[in-house]
């Protein structure tokens, strides 16, 4: 087992600067998820750690050893690929045992270790089959078995669940999380799916255009996004963004919307010093922070408004309702029976204590 330390890493492909100076320190045993939209450089970063790509600048260290120039086979990492990459001409046993055979382990040891892994993953009865005879989920298990059979220092996962259907994906996600709890080896996991990132990660590294946009614990990123990009990327449905202008009055501050009477009075502690009077801002409000208003008076920091529901999307446990606030669409996550039909006017409480405020120019949180 070992941690991974990346310093000043750059990688270019014919004209594309895929990774632009990444510094990342992954402690031993941590489950780190690299997440971002396609083309953000997350897979390239992972492949560079594996040794499948050479870094153009910067270093990759596994444990205490800098591994630039070290061949993939000598890095002692295991990787699970998006397309599973099972060897079609070998049986499941052949697939799982190849790494041990390549290292010249004794036959008895190979059989014991493969049997143990097969048992762990529930694929004992598949050992004699070929990949083409397996279902998607079974292939995924074999691919994971191939990775864990030799106790590598670091596990690398390159979007391993993206080819599975939704139900199987949930199931395998749980299994990967359990696997990490059981063997607690360093895992680096690439995905573009923010739900996978949130559920699996000890730490999320959110990447954009070859940079790290923000990294931290999943809930920290979710609750305190550093930029609008992070705020918009994490969370489903997406955060609502409302464009307005700061109006200061004495100690307090409010957000006013051009040409509208509505204004949102910011709660104490949210009226940051950086918010100068008249400054243009974007208020970020997650759907779950817009609820149906109940009771006489909302608590301080919560603004009550009344709006007609334009669009209603029930999901069973919740209903997503779209209404307009100062002409801008806002999605609210309501209880299933809060609204019975579109067009209904209801009181809605906006919890501004949890809202984020961004600078529209830089996209940074204020």
């Amino acid at each position: 087992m070992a941690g991974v330390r990346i310093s000043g890493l750059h990688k270019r492909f014919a004209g594309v600067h895929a990774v632009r100076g990444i510094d990342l320190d992954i402690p031993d045993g941590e489950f780190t998820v690299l997440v971002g939209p396609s083309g953000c450089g997350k897979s390239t970063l992972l492949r560079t750690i594996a040794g499948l790509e050479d870094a153009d600048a910067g270093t990759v260290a596994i444990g205490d050893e800098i591994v630039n120039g070290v061949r993939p086979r000598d890095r002692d990492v295991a990787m699970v690929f998006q397309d599973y990459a099972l060897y079609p001409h070998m049986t499941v046993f052949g697939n799982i045992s190849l790494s041990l055979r390549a290292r010249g382990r004794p036959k008895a040891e190979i059989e014991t270790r493969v049997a143990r892994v097969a048992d762990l993953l529930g694929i004992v009865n598949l050992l004699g089959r070929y990949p083409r005879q397996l279902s998607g989920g079974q292939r995924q298990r074999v691919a994971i078995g191939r990775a864990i059979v030799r106790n590598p220092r670091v596990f690398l996962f390159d979007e391993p669940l993206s080819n599975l259907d939704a139900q199987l994906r949930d199931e395998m996600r749980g299994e990967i999380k359990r696997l990490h709890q059981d063997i607690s080896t360093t895992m680096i996991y690439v995905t573009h799916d923010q739900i996978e990132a949130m559920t699996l990660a000890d730490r999320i590294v959110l990447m954009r255009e070859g940079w790290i946009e923000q990294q931290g614990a999943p809930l920290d990123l979710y609750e305190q996004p550093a930029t609008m990009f992070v705020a918009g990327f994490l969370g489903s449905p997406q955060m609502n963004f409302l464009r307005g202008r700061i109006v200061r009055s004495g100690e307090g501050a409010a957000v006013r919307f051009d040409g509208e009477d509505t204004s949102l009075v910011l709660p104490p502690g949210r009226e940051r010093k950086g918010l100068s009077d008249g400054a243009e801002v974007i208020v970020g409000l997650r759907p779950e922070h817009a609820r149906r208003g109940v009771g006489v008076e909302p608590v301080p920091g919560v603004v009550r408004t009344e709006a007609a529901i334009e669009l209603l999307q029930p999901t069973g446990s919740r209903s997503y309702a779209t209404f307009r606030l100062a002409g801008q669409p806002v999605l609210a996550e309501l209880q299933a029976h809060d609204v019975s039909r579109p067009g209904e006017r209801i009181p809605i409480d906006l919890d501004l204590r949890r809202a984020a405020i961004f600078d529209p120019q830089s996209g940074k949180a204020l």
Partner: protein
Amino acid sequence: MADAATRPLRIRSRATAELPRILCIAGFVIFVLVPLYWMVVTSIKPTSDYLALPPVWFPAEPTIVHYTAALFSYRGLDGLTNSIIIASASTVLSTVFGTLMAYSMARFNTGSGHLAFWVLSQRFLPPVATALPLFLMFRSWHLYDTHVGLIIVYTVMTLPLSVWMMYAYFRQLPRSLEDAALVDGLSRWQALWMVAVPLAAPGIVAAAVFVFVAVWTEFFFALVLTSRYAFTLPTVFRAFLGFQGAQYGEACALATTSLVPSIVLGILVQRHLVRGLTLGALRG
């Protein structure tokens, strides 16, 4: 009800639609097989039956005299042996070098397309242009009329073919399989040998068959670069067109004999020529 009424009609019209297809296939089969049959049957006909009218479809008294004459008197057996040695060696060499070169071009973009085109461009050169220089070089290097000499020429001559066939094949092999092998602890050579080559086997076998057939039937270089010792099967056929007229029986006997290795090879590799081994390796 309407459905039941129209059903027999539909069956009949389907059979009618099939008819032209069946006729075309039958015509093609006859077109291909009749000359072959005529060749085989002529090889066992007595001399008087060759050009008899009406044609003799099967001789009353089959004979193997043409085979013994073609193989021994005309040294057909020596030609056959030489051809087997030279074609096998050239096929192995061309396939091995072709595999390595194609893999390198496909995976590492060696020569960035220019090399691939250069390899192909070797086929643009008419053999006549190289025959004379080769003849002179081979004579001074003591390669004239040797197995080694012809093997070199045929290996070089067929390399573009094998490289291009395998280049196309390696390029469509998913890269992640070899990546997985490298991470699993294989060296690049092991990844090539244990993963890429088995998966490219259908392509490699197909290329090998093409190379073998090309060498097996090659006449021009064999004629120019050999004489009494390393001559190959195709050059033996010259002897059957002599002053005394055409030796149809001997020619057909040797032609029939020369078909045997190709047919055996075809049967042996047929299984590998079926593609689709990679199906199921990757995403469902």
